[in-house]
């Protein structure tokens, strides 16, 4: 942690009218890190990303990106960033290749250099065979990959990805993850937002969980699971409410913590298999029973609650 952070936010605030979207946020991202902002919709992830990307002015606190102040040196910072926004901002009128080419020109690259990089990048995101098609004709996954290719044309030191795989089918998601993983291995610093737990576990070295504009937890995916959940989770489903209710007293005797949901009971425990053995020897008899490892999703739901905040 001795290096100068690429992103250094202290007491960062963003307001929209009376609504505080980002509420005194403190975050540091080190070079080479893959860092994630995790949180439900409306948690302030995108507002934070837009301030880091220098397309939104902060309303309070201090922010430094690549050692510069976005308020006064936005253009110079953006010259060294790669940005993959939540909604595609591609040029539908242009071809796949022309989208990358014109983007290189925005960064002031020469035509020859842009052409060379465009061909490399289209290869990297596996769109070489679609290079002369109009963007109109591409699937959502292909557009995402094109947006990623475009964002890399200036060889950015810091890549910002706002929900990079939202709305993609499983194949497309895995392809995007794989490309991002390769990008990370090549030494790029990645900052991403997501509400997919598996995405955060796959890609992030370190992450913060945001809720209501604040950070509610911070750490590596593993450390967060260790700190805020148990090793295992046992999920029990019962035939009806009555059976579930009857079983609760017995369930009180196993695990560290229980969560009663309308359709099932979750038992958070250090050793799921041992608990299941104890439970099944002298019943309750659930309709179905599942022992699984605790995931970031358990942490997330524990910290941000299960109610929908829309």
């Amino acid at each position, binding site marked *: 942690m001795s290096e100068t952070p690429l992103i250094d936010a202290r007491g960062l605030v963003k307001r*929209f009218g009376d609504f505080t979207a980002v509420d005194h946020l403190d975050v540091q991202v080190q070079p080479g890190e893959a860092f994630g902002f995790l949180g439900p919709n409306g948690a302030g992830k995108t507002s934070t990303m837009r301030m880091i*990307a220098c*397309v*939104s*002015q902060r309303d309070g606190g201090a922010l430094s990106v690549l050692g510069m102040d976005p308020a006064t040196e*936005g*253009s*110079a910072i*953006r*010259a060294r*960033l790669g*940005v993959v*926004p939540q*909604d*595609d*901002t*591609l*040029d*539908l*009128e*242009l071809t796949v290749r*022309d989208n990358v080419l*014109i*983007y290189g*020109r*925005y*960064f*002031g690259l020469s035509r020859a250099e842009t052409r060379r990089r465009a061909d490399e990048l289209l290869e990297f995101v596996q769109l070489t065979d679609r290079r002369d098609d109009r963007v109109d004709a591409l699937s959502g996954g292909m557009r995402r990959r094109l947006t990623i290719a*475009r*964002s890399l044309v*200036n060889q950015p030191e810091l890549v910002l990805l706002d929900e990079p795989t939202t709305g993609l089918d499983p194949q497309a998601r895995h392809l995007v993850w794989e490309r991002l993983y390769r990008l990370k291995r090549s030494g790029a610093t990645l900052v991403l937002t997501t509400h997919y737990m598996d995405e955060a576990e796959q890609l992030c070295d370190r992450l913060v969980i945001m809720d209501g504009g604040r950070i509610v937890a911070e750490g590596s995916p593993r450390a967060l699971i260790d700190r805020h959940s148990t090793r295992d989770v046992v999920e029990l489903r019962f035939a009806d409410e009555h059976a579930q209710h009857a079983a609760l007293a017995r369930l009180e005797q196993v695990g560290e913590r229980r969560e009663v949901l309308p359709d099932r009971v979750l038992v958070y425990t250090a050793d799921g298999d041992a608990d299941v053995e104890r439970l099944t020897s002298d019943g309750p008899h659930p309709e179905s029973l599942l022992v699984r490892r605790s995931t970031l999703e358990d942490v997330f739901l524990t910290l941000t609650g299960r109610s929908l905040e829309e």
Partner: protein
Amino acid sequence: MSAPLALRVVEHEAQVFKRFWRGTLFGYVLNPLLYLAALGFGLGSLITENQGEVAGLPYVEFVAPGLMAAAAMQAAAADSLWPVMAGMKWIRWYHGMVATPLRPRDVYTGSVAWTAMRAGLGATVFLVVAALLGAIPSAWGVLAIPSAALTAAGFAAMLAAYAATQEVDLRFPLIMRLGILPLFLVSGTFFPIDQLPGWLQVCAWASPLWHGVELCRASTTGMLEAVDLAHLAFLVGFLWVGWLWGIRSFDARLTA
């Protein structure tokens, strides 16, 4: 140092234009042919029979520069309302631009510059067609091209600035019908404004299109005078005010 950032936006627009320039060029040729045939020669022959000249000119020579300036205004208006909404909201390529070193003001300035350049191209085609039809008596007519482009730039600056403040395109047809069309009709395009009732004459003086028409007409007839500097100054002022508004409205919209 590299060229101004706004030029990179112009390059983008040119790149998009390459895909449909044929249709646009066809329109540029068709427009003066139709208008000059119908008004310059059709209506013009009636006027010549009944009255002779208009403002000391054969009618076709009077109306050609008016139509040229008006065409530039109309093209600029259409290019600055819906396309700006598309860039901001429907397709959102402006948001892609401002994620690079380009600033909202570069996006705005580049878009307005491109609209003016396209209008200049349209004016060039118009001038050539009109000259071939014998409606341009003076070689000073080439000055009508920058005059028309400047008129277009002013309208583009104002309307793009306005479009960036709008969430939906609901009011855009009204702007065309209640703003652009009346200006087209009463800005000295078809008849000298001293034919208008006094209060409407005052309105015409405030119309940027009238100043553009006067400048174009002075050029194509080779009758440039000192007063044309005032027309030029008005158009520059109109562009300046629009630009000051636009760099703010684009900034407010793209960096919220």
